């Protein structure tokens, strides 16, 4: 990365962190990081939590739109299973980057910077924000930062962002009921007996 690009990254990072989170509708500022609290050492474990239940979220409306498109580029719908955004994975990513815990702080910077980069890149190439790109255009932008050769180029940071966003999207997706069905997890259901592996599974690995 040359010095110019490095400075640009630094500036966008600062901008991403300090931008007032007021969206076009004039909604109040959200998630003042540093004052948000965790769930404490004795939370209800049985409660069902939704993103935003424990700490306020971060995304502005435009960041949210970009996040949704990127989620669905990574996990598109098919005949058997829905897209990532259809099961709210973008909300999970918002929750993740809004976390008050130290382990997520680096992802907050990486992802907010990365979303900004996507818009810059879409504007440079297609004169549109990322969320307004056609699916083919949106995929193309990601294709260019998913290749191994990118790791050394000036797009290295964008590739790091994409890898992390992909990991969170995939992890977020496959931990939902729809995602579990899509991956082939069929447990978490009580049964009277445990019969061991079925014959076709044993045959698959040469044990029957």
């Amino acid at each position, binding site marked *: 990365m040359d010095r110019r690009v490095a400075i640009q990254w630094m500036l966008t990072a600062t901008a991403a962190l300090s931008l007032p989170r007021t969206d076009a509708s004039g909604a109040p500022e959200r998630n003042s990081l540093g004052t948000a609290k965790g769930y404490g050492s004795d939370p209800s474990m049985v409660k069902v939590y939704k993103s935003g239940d424990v700490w306020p979220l971060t995304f502005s409306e435009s960041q949210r739109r970009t996040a949704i498109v990127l989620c669905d580029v990574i996990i598109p719908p098919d005949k058997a299973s829905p897209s990532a955004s259809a099961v709210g994975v973008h909300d999970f990513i918002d929750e993740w980057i809004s*976390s008050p815990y130290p382990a997520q702080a680096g992802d907050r910077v990486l992802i907010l910077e990365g979303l900004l980069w996507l818009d810059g890149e879409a504007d440079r190439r297609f004169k549109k924000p990322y969320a307004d790109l056609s699916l083919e255009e949106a995929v193309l932008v990601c294709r260019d930062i998913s290749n*191994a050769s990118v790791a050394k180029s000036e797009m290295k940071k964008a590739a790091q962002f994409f890898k992390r966003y*992909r990991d969170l999207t995939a*992890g977020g997706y496959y931990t939902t009921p729809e995602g579990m069905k899509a991956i082939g997890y069929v447990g*978490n259901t009580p049964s009277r007996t*445990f019969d*061991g592996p079925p014959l076709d599974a044993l045959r698959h690995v040469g044990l029957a």
Partner: protein
Amino acid sequence: MSFITSHNLKKAYDVIVVGSGAGGGQTAYALTMEGMQVLVLEAGRAFDTASEVAMFQLPSQAPLRGVSTPDKQYGFHDCSINSGWEIPGEPYTNAGKEPANQFRWWRQRMMGGRTNHWGRIALRNGPYDFKPHTRFGAGFDWPIGYEDIAPYYDKVEMLIGVFGTNEGLENSPDSSPGVLLAAPKLRVGELYAQRHGAKAGASVKSIHRAVLTQPQDADTVPIKLHPGNAKAQRILAEHMRMRSPCFWATDCHRGCSIRANYDSQTVHLLPALATGNLDVLPNAMAREVTLNNEGRATGITFIDKTSGKEAHATGRVVVLAAGSQESVRLLLNSKSNLFPNGLANSSGKVGRYITDSVSSSLGAHIPAFEGMPIHNEDGAGGPHAYVPWTMHQQNRKGEFGFPGGYHLEFTSGRQMPSLTTLSGIDTFAGRGEIVFGHQLKEDARRFYGCSLGFGAQGTMLPNDDTFSELDPETRDQWGIPVLRFHWKWSEFELNQVRHQQQHIRELLEAMGGRVKSAVETDVFKSMKPGGSIIHEVGGAIMGAKAATSVTNEWSQTWDVKNLFLADGAPFASTADKNPTLTIMALAWRMADRLMDEMKKGNI
């Protein structure tokens, strides 16, 4: 379950037990069933295993998909509250600065202690494990042998319910006929390791775990456990009938509201309360064992955490089962004119000889599992198989450069997906890019469930450089001095970890596995830090002589006749087995001795 508050303590108890986990629970059970009046003090809050455990909740229903945070250090749905390596207001310190000299100390501040999230792996120590000095010329022989504890292993296994098979293995003992519950069928990965592991010298067997695979025999077991005691038989039978067998779903670490697996509240404290002989006081942080002029223990001074005020409970006998190092801390903080260096410490051995399971792990991608037909592998909420240590002849005198051995535990199968389920997915097909889109969904289906790994847990013998003492400066939020740990691995442990890494790699490769990490030449990077496995024991070891140990073979302190230990503190070494079953067996044996001595008027 109804518990008392510090306002309605009885004037005096026969026995005060500090701690409600495996050791404290077993002690309270054994004593109350025989009519003793017992008080259990627990530093954590009451916890309802019927309504508070999250068995079926999905990661997507937890904050941050349930990953571990400083507030929930084993993940959101793990059955632990107010617990962790670091607890605000309850520090401990390490004397050493280097990473290899750090000890990590898990504390579980809740009713039932660590048994709530225990993996339920219940292996017996074998004959060699009690006599390391005789066999390897290192460490200390315990003052008991396997034959002394074997009847108590049978009793504990019948009480708590343990599945497994008798394999006739050297130094991994069988249970008596009829004691074990049926072992569940093995999963694909476990069977595959069984078939191919032999090439690497690994013998895959059914593991023993404290999970009911069938209803307990409530008609005959209570009679065997409590001969001639009709009340105890009735109460135990009733409580056995309240437990459901496993319904083959949900992770045991999350706890079990149907009571299929063991935790100390369900199996020990509930029947003990039903006798009418037990009081349980939560939120009571023990501070000091009190003494009379004759040097006999008179009770426990504790902080009532609900009010912050100090209170005292009086008893004829005191049993410490606070967790080995917490019991050590209590002894060291109980200073008097008679015991200026801490209670029961005339030998100077309190805090000495801490040991822990020696551990490292390694995982692989198993291409043979790709595209596996979809099926449910939840099973008994944890492993069904393990690799016991069988290389006794090769290591007869420690020829491998370490005494004892280690067993291997599986992580395998089509487990409930977590946030990191697809970790490594870009490498499996060799695509050389960050996979996304339809290709990602396809790869996810193909590669899910193909990860298989082993974690080793092995023997550690005590050394002079691994111990705990009071920190001269640091105090906890109640002003109680905290422990300072000294940790040093000996060449034995380093050699063992090298062997573990090599052996696991060979085993994974024998399965055609692509091992996920390169050979690590720095052994400290492979091995888990001291305390990480949460198997720390010792600190008040039992021995044959008062000058070199803290307790006798009955876990009774040499210095104070009516003071006993019932957690891991009396362990003279760590075996290649998990300690919990042995803690319970020793606690029951100790309780029988205690009652015997009281009847004889010796206490």
